[in-house]
């Protein structure tokens, strides 16, 4: 293209429009560095989806536990079985992270902790506190 070329409509030619799929792609997750705030945000989304996935199971356990004494015992047996306890660790962490990260986002909505330093600090805090609380609950539960 000649510099300063114009097309038949009199508009500057700025080169070809980008073809779909012609943009550079770099998906080596091991080499991509994410800010801690991005990690918290992504984990917030993942934990939310996980909690939604187990919600039907939890409603079922509630209905089972309220039906009659044998139902209550069956629900208790499910909750103390090994595979459920292993999954439960993940669910408890998901709940803690989603709750704490969510509170952090509500604070940011109210413009608390929006400076970069404060945002990074609160992000680290959320990650740490959710791990600690999850381990606490797990030890009590198991």
């Amino acid at each position: 293209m000649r510099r300063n070329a114009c097309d038949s409509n009199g508009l500057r030619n700025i080169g070809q429009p980008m073809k779909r799929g012609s943009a550079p792609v770099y998906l080596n997750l091991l080499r991509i560095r994410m800010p801690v705030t991005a990690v918290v945000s992504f984990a917030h989304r993942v934990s939310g989806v996980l909690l939604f996935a187990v919600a039907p199971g939890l409603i079922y356990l509630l209905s089972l536990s309220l039906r009659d004494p044998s139902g209550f015992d069956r629900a208790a047996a499910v909750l103390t079985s090994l595979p459920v306890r292993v999954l439960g660790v993940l669910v408890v962490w998901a709940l803690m992270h989603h709750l704490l990260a969510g509170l952090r986002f509500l604070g940011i909505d109210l413009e608390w902790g929006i400076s970069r330093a404060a945002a990074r600090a609160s992000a680290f805090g959320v990650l740490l506190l959710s791990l600690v609380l999850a381990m606490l609950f797990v030890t009590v539960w198991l």
Partner: protein
Amino acid sequence: MTQRGGGLGAWLVQRLSAVYLALFTVAALAWLILHTPWDYASWRALFARPAVSIASGLFFLALMAHAWVGVRDVILDYIGNFVARMTLLALLLGGVLALALWALQVLWTAAS
């Protein structure tokens, strides 16, 4: 909320439901740890109380509203194909409504 576009309605639903969910979760966890209703009789008696039943019902309504906004965001972000997106959104709406009705039914029968 009826202004064109913006997404303000969904944002508000998500925030309001989040506040109630957070308060209920913390209160419920604290109460359960303190009172440990670990047999059928006390568990059932807990849900026979109208305050508990209603607060729990609100919890499930808030949970489904909150989940709807959240999962809808995920679907809108990642599903490019129009038919697939619309199908999943429709299934999501049906799913959260069904779960809400199921939970309310469980609470209702436990309260009677």
